[in-house]
């Protein structure tokens, strides 16, 4: 049992190392990706700076709170929204899945490990970029005063990345039945951009709209984690948020697993 666990860890450690190196295989693409991350933050901060030049408050936010929100949500999005699972649909569509099925690897763990490598890469490079943007824009960053807030926030971030992983797998597994799963994934990205709260907090919208968003899984990718870190949730909101996050993780994991079982059962490995 000990040896089995040790060799398993070694296998996935190797996958992690290879995925990390793969990230640098195309250096220009890699740096352009980093540049894109910075541009999205610059746009969001510039927009809010311009808006607050003519008003004191937007909904319950003043300028410092809003810039703080944008910064923290950017950090969370670097961790949660980076993923390699987009490649799964190509693996299935091209017939390469049969190669994965023959390997002594758990398909879900394999891709989760690759995701983790991607997230590490994002975190390492984002530190420098965010430090640069912090010096330029000098937002008033809110640091939690209590270690429990940090712990809960990190737990919620981990939950968010699990949720994003399973949602991405669900979209990839559609390829078992439809030839092109890119179109529904495109719609998913658009919806996530608007309802996850990456460039603006969701509670600036009218309450019925915010309540509607909160019934979907998307605010539990970024918005919930950011509000938790900023200490803007009371105990009831925090626990109900954790309940919803757990519910959506279980739900998406269950759907992903069911689709995988059904999809692999009828998989013909066409294309190879």
């Amino acid at each position: 049992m000990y040896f089995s666990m040790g060799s398993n860890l070694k296998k996935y450690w190797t996958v992690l190392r290879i995925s990390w190196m793969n990230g640098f295989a195309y250096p220009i693409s890699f740096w352009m990706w980093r540049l894109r991350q910075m541009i999205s933050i610059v746009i969001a901060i510039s927009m809010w700076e311009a808006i607050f030049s003519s008003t004191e408050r937007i909904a319950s936010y003043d300028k410092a709170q809003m810039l703080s929100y944008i910064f923290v949500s950017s950090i969370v999005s670097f961790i949660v929204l980076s993923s390699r699972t987009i490649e799964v649909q190509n693996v299935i569509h091209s017939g390469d899945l049969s190669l994965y099925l023959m390997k002594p690897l758990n398909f879900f763990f394999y891709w989760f490990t690759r995701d983790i490598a991607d997230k590490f890469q994002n975190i390492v490079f984002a530190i420098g970029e965010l430090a640069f943007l912090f010096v330029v824009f000098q937002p008033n960053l809110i640091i939690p005063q209590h270690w429990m807030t940090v712990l809960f926030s990190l737990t919620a971030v981990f939950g968010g990345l699990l949720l994003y992983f399973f949602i991405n797998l669900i979209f990839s597994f559609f390829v078992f039945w439809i030839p092109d799963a890119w179109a529904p994934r495109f719609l998913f990205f658009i919806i996530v951009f608007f309802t996850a709260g990456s460039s603006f907090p969701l509670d600036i919208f009218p309450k019925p709209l915010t309540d509607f968003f909160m019934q979907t899984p998307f605010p539990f990718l970024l918005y919930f984690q950011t509000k938790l870190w900023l200490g803007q949730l009371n105990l009831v909101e925090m626990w109900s948020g954790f309940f919803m996050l757990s519910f959506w993780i279980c739900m998406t994991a269950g759907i992903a697993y069911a689709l995988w079982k059904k999809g692999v059962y009828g998989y013909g490995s066409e294309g190879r």
Partner: protein
Amino acid sequence: MRYGKRESMGMVLRGDNLITRYIKFWFLFAKYEVLKQFSSMFSVVFFFFGKSVRFFSFLLLLIVLQQHTKAMAGFTLEQVIIFFFTFNYIDLISQIFLRGVYMLSGKVRSGEFDFYLTQPMNLLFRTMAGNPDFNDLLLFIPLVLFSLWYTFTFIPTITLWSFILYLIFLIHGLLISLSFHIFVVCLGIVTTEIDNTIMVYRDISQMGRFPLEIYREPLRGFMTFVLPVGIMISVPSKALMGLASPMLLLFSLFITWLFFFFALRTWNSSLKMYTSASS
């Protein structure tokens, strides 16, 4: 797929002048792409829905902001929406006509690009215009109708002259967008890496959804003189609202043509660096 006699390349080439010939080429590409893209109505519906959601969600954000504040960097939010429409015009038209750029890296890596070199057609045209995207056309038509209604309803200062100026500078904005795409193609030919580069252009152009004035210096200067996305979107919008000085218009004409000239020179140089390594 059956190609009729009239649609063969030979018929396209015979007796046509250069412009007519290339228009016919484009329609030929367009026909194949329409057949390909609309063969999966499932994808068409999702793309159309996704693009509509993207457009209306941003519009909703601006409308919500309007309830909290009346201005952004000295512009009313009605005026900011004009910038957003102009951004969408340039973005969608570029997507419709220049989609081939997105597929270039695969063609360079697989060696298919060599095949283009042997064809009796302008290589830049073949590379960029070879895969028009008609998913964007579905959104473009309602956008034109909606934006015309909105503009003439909420911006009452528009005159015939300012509208003509808008069209002239919108075309110049498209010329800047074309130049950006040429630069991306050049980079793709030299490095075989294009995917994130073209997305960087998309992200930078998104900065033009807002008036240039919201950005701090030196970023604003960078977006005017180095990567003229500010000129691409801000100048037509300001011309429409009567906010552009003659000096700004002349300056933007100069920058646009200079940028375009520089893009073409870069294209010629990068083509000489193509090594056909994949073939």
